[in-house]
């Protein structure tokens, strides 16, 4: 018996002592590989310490070794539920350094695709959040709708989860023919699907009991912790970067910034549900604004030429060759560009030393910052509610660990 390592020795523990348990990293409701170290008193959480890094792949290091246009595909893999948002934050930071003027059509398509992506991201959140709490059905309805959006993204870019559709200076290619009709088909049916989700969850007493008053955070604390996106608006702060620092022409769209005063899981749920309606409104407006026109900026040293021009024009061929082999030079300087991702403020800090590769790229992931507030949110709650709280933060570990 004496040869047993100390951790296997049976110790007489009175029942009222605190217990430390490890939740994750394989726990299904941690949405990836998050580990929580929970100190419990009975079923009550005394202290929750997130342990992250299981998915760290050194993306920020990798950016420094890739040319600017090669970095776009890395961003797809960060927040894999909102890849178009990541693309946009990254290319806009580079465009800011290059001082590129993006044509109107490309901007409208960017807004259109980003809002579709936001709906898709919120649908995954809704399905998994409800699944964590115990409502299985919602998951299937959500993924049915999300599938339609992924089909649209696939039609435009060729990729479902990793589109890399936005390029520095514009878009990869124009929308395929018939795309507007397919988007219209989707948005016509979406509001009734949203009503379906409300029927399944919003009036459900079990769901309300599991979410109302759980994981409360006040507006001051939310700002102090750096919460952004629906988590901040769930605490009553009407801050949306699409409104505060408009980009890609968001100032021309008519939409509301939904806020809820509750500050709990239910409030964050309602904010996201209403945000899907607003995104739907923006998609309708973007469709109406879609006019024929160029989709790439007039900057031959940065933007790849059309295939046809490359075959017929000598200078286009030279530019194509130079961009692909050497990359393009970006003026030295540093920018921080923030957009409203589906989960909050998605910021890209980009520093250039004048060469074809960035000297530093840092991504301010909203999930990273939102998760850091978990110790405060979970303190004093039950273990089962920790699952609801994590779900309401809508984290994606790919972005947290990068």
């Amino acid at each position, binding site marked *: 018996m004496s040869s047993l390592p100390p951790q296997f020795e049976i110790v007489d523990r009175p029942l009222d002592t605190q217990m430390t348990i490890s939740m994750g990293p394989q726990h299904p409701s941690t949405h990836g590989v998050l580990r929580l170290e929970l100190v419990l008193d009975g079923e009550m959480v005394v202290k929750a310490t997130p342990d992250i890094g299981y998915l760290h792949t050194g993306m920020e*290091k990798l950016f420094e070794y890739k040319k600017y246009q090669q970095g776009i595909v890395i961003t797809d893999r960060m927040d894999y539920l909102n890849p178009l948002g990541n693309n946009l934050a990254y290319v806009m930071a580079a465009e800011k350094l290059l001082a590129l003027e993006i044509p109107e059509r490309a901007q409208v398509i960017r807004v259109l695709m980003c809002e579709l992506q936001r709906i898709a991201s919120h649908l995954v959140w809704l399905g998994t959040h409800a699944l964590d709490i115990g409502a299985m059905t919602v998951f299937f309805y959500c993924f049915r709708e999300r599938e339609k959006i992924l089909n649209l993204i696939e039609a435009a870019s060729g990729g479902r989860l990793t589109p890399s559709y936005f390029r520095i200076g514009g878009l990869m290619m124009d929308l395929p023919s018939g795309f507007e009709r397919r988007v219209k088909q989707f948005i016509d049916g979406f509001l009734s699907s949203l009503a379906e989700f409300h029927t399944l969850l919003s009036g459900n007493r079990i769901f309300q009991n599991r979410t109302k008053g759980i994981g409360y955070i006040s507006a001051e604390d939310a700002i102090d912790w750096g919460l952004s996106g629906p988590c901040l608006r769930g605490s009553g702060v009407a801050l949306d970067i699409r409104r505060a*620092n408009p980009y890609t022409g968001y100032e021309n769209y008519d939409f509301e910034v939904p806020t809820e005063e509750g500050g709990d899981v239910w409030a964050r749920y309602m904010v996201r549900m209403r945000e899907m309606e607003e995104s739907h409104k923006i998609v309708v407006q973007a469709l109406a604004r879609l006019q024929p026109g160029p989709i790439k900026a007039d900057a031959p040293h940065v933007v790849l030429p059309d295939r046809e021009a490359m075959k017929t024009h000598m200078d286009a061929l030279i530019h194509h060759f130079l961009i692909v082999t050497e990359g393009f030079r970006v003026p030295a300087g540093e920018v*921080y560009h923030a957009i409203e991702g589906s989960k909050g403020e998605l*910021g890209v*800090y980009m520093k250039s030393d004048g060469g074809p590769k960035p000297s530093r790229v840092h991504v301010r992931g909203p999930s990273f910052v939102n998760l850091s507030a978990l110790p405060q949110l979970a303190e004093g709650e039950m273990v089962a509610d920790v699952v609801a709280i994590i779900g309401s933060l809508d984290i994606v570990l790919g972005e947290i660990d990068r």
Partner: protein
Amino acid sequence: MSNGVENKQGAEEQAEPTPSNAVTPSPLVTALQHAYPEWGGEVTEAFGEVTVVVPREKIVEICRFLKTAPGLEFNFLSDLCGADRGPEEEPRFEVNYHLFSTTRHHRLRLKVLLNDNDTHVPTVSFIWRTANWHERETFDLLGVIFDGHPDLRRILLPDDWQGHALRKDFPLRGYEPYSLT
């Protein structure tokens, strides 16, 4: 019903008098110089963004001042990140603080420069609690030490990792294969 919506939108417009694209940052620069004259000529503006290089002894004092200063109100720390300029450069490291105001919607970058042999900078995690994880990340990947931080441990890489991965002299593939066992 429609009236209510219109009123709400009107109120929102009033509450947001300065969408940041419309604010040419020059007023911000003058406001900053006016509010804190000791900065002198270190307030720079490029790509529509304002940067202030701050000596590290004063970073806590300046952050505390900016958080509540009337007219500036940088109450939100968007991001904190470090950068390595390369082993030959002096000063080698920089720490960037990206501040944002939830009421005025303007942004500011504070920059602290550090030499290779002395990578200490005071923590701001007691001014904004969100700085806690950002500082841990910067410590983990660049080896910048935040004095007074309540919990300065590695956050992304394993605790027994050797070196700091985002330094320019750290090879892309590491020194040797890392084994979890």
